[in-house]
């Protein structure tokens, strides 16, 4: 039995590596994105095999699903704006000297070899922090150790992560300031029906994944990504059209999670404890409250990242079109 599973592991590992290479080498940019999505889903499957279902969910929903949607959106944008300037054929636009190409490959190989030596040199399968985490679990307020680490033991990291997401949307809005509106893809009536059927179910799954994160795989980031999928569907069906007047509310929702997270830390600190040392009796309530608000922020931020350009009125002074 375990031999059959090992064979599966070998085949899966080979497929992951082969598809990663194929995604970079294939000529057509659309095929590149499709291969990348397949690669991400297979990686998520591999991480399930390595007993990391939380990470697999995050990779499938955020690392593959939403990243794939962002890539497709950008490709659509590039192709709609004239095929002349940018084409997959332009991979070899300027011929690279053979020596440089070999040097690049050699350098990548050297870094890889160095990493391999470092990994093989470090002791595998020795006890890391799992004992410390297991001992502190009763105080954490949740039963899923990954959620406990993310929202309690290492909550600083997660706070910063939410801030990174927030800065991403600021950066995207600044970069595309003054750019023309993105070309809207039209997907037709069947897509509309599909969106109508799946929207309520997606909302339910998103909230369930958030709620279940306390004791089972799931959590704020996975749930937020699924709710963001609703935002994507609403943008693509035209159910929601971003309007300049909505920016105030959008900004409020972007910062909601960060503010709630930081405010909780300050409140806890005000009670004479360290900033993320929740009182054990309130820990679960506080964690779920933070997670719920952070989920809303994540969903809205991810949807805004997909939409890209800030919805400004187009006759503003900030346009600097030629």
């Amino acid at each position, binding site marked *: 039995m375990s031999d059959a599973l*090992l064979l599966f592991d070998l085949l899966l*590992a080979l497929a992951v590596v082969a598809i*990663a*290479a194929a*995604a*970079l080498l294939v000529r057509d940019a659309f095929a*590149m994105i499709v291969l*990348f999505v397949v690669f*991400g889903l297979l*990686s998520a499957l*591999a991480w399930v095999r*390595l*007993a*990391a279902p*939380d*990470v697999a969910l*995050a*990779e499938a929903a*955020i*690392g593959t699903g939403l990243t794939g949607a*962002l890539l497709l959106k*950008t490709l659509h*944008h590039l192709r709609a*704006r*004239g095929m*002349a300037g*940018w084409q*997959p054929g*332009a*991979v070899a636009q300027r011929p690279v000297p053979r020596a440089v190409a070999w040097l690049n*490959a050699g350098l*990548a*190989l050297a*870094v*890889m070899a160095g*990493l391999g030596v470092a*990994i093989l040199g470090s002791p*595998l399968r020795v006890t*890391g*922090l799992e004992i410390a*985490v297991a001992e502190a679990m009763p105080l954490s307020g949740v039963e899923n*150790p*990954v959620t406990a*680490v*993310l929202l309690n033991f*290492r909550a600083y990291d997660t706070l910063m*992560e939410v801030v*990174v997401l927030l800065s*991403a*949307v600021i*950066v*995207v809005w600044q*970069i595309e300031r003054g*750019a023309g509106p993105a070309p809207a893809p039209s997907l037709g009536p069947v897509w509309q029906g599909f969106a109508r059927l799946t929207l309520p179910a997606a909302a339910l799954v998103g909230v369930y994944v958030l709620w279940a994160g306390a004791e089972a795989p799931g*959590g704020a*980031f996975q749930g937020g990504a699924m709710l963001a999928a609703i935002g994507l569907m609403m943008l693509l069906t035209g159910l929601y059209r971003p309007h300049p007047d909505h920016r105030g509310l959008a900004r409020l929702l972007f910062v909601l999670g960060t503010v709630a997270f930081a405010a909780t830390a300050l409140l806890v600190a005000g009670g004479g404890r360290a900033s993320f040392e929740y009182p054990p009796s309130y820990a679960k309530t506080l964690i779920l409250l933070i997670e719920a608000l952070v989920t809303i922020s994540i969903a809205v931020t991810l949807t805004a*990242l997909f939409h*890209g350009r800030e919805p400004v009125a187009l006759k503003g002074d900030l346009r600097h*079109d*030629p």
Partner: protein
Amino acid sequence: MTPDLIYGAAGLAVFGIGLWGAIALQDRMRRLLGLKLCSVGAGFVLIVGAWREPPAAPDPMPHALVITGIVVMLSATAAALALIRRLHDLEDADDRP
């Protein structure tokens, strides 16, 4: 032969392929994809480091790190794609007489 060794090697290979793509390719989207492959490869290595022979449970700490990494990579990807779109628009405008 155990799952951690198999996937550890796969993660290393994916990292190497991604690094090569990021430095050797010229197309901007492919370079970005190369960086993304690097991040997934690093994720593989971290998760392999957290794996324990069943029935022992894995170390949750690296798992949390990789989830953070995935979200940070998405933020970076979104910003990079916005730059790519903007650069393309500007070049497009330059080409036009």
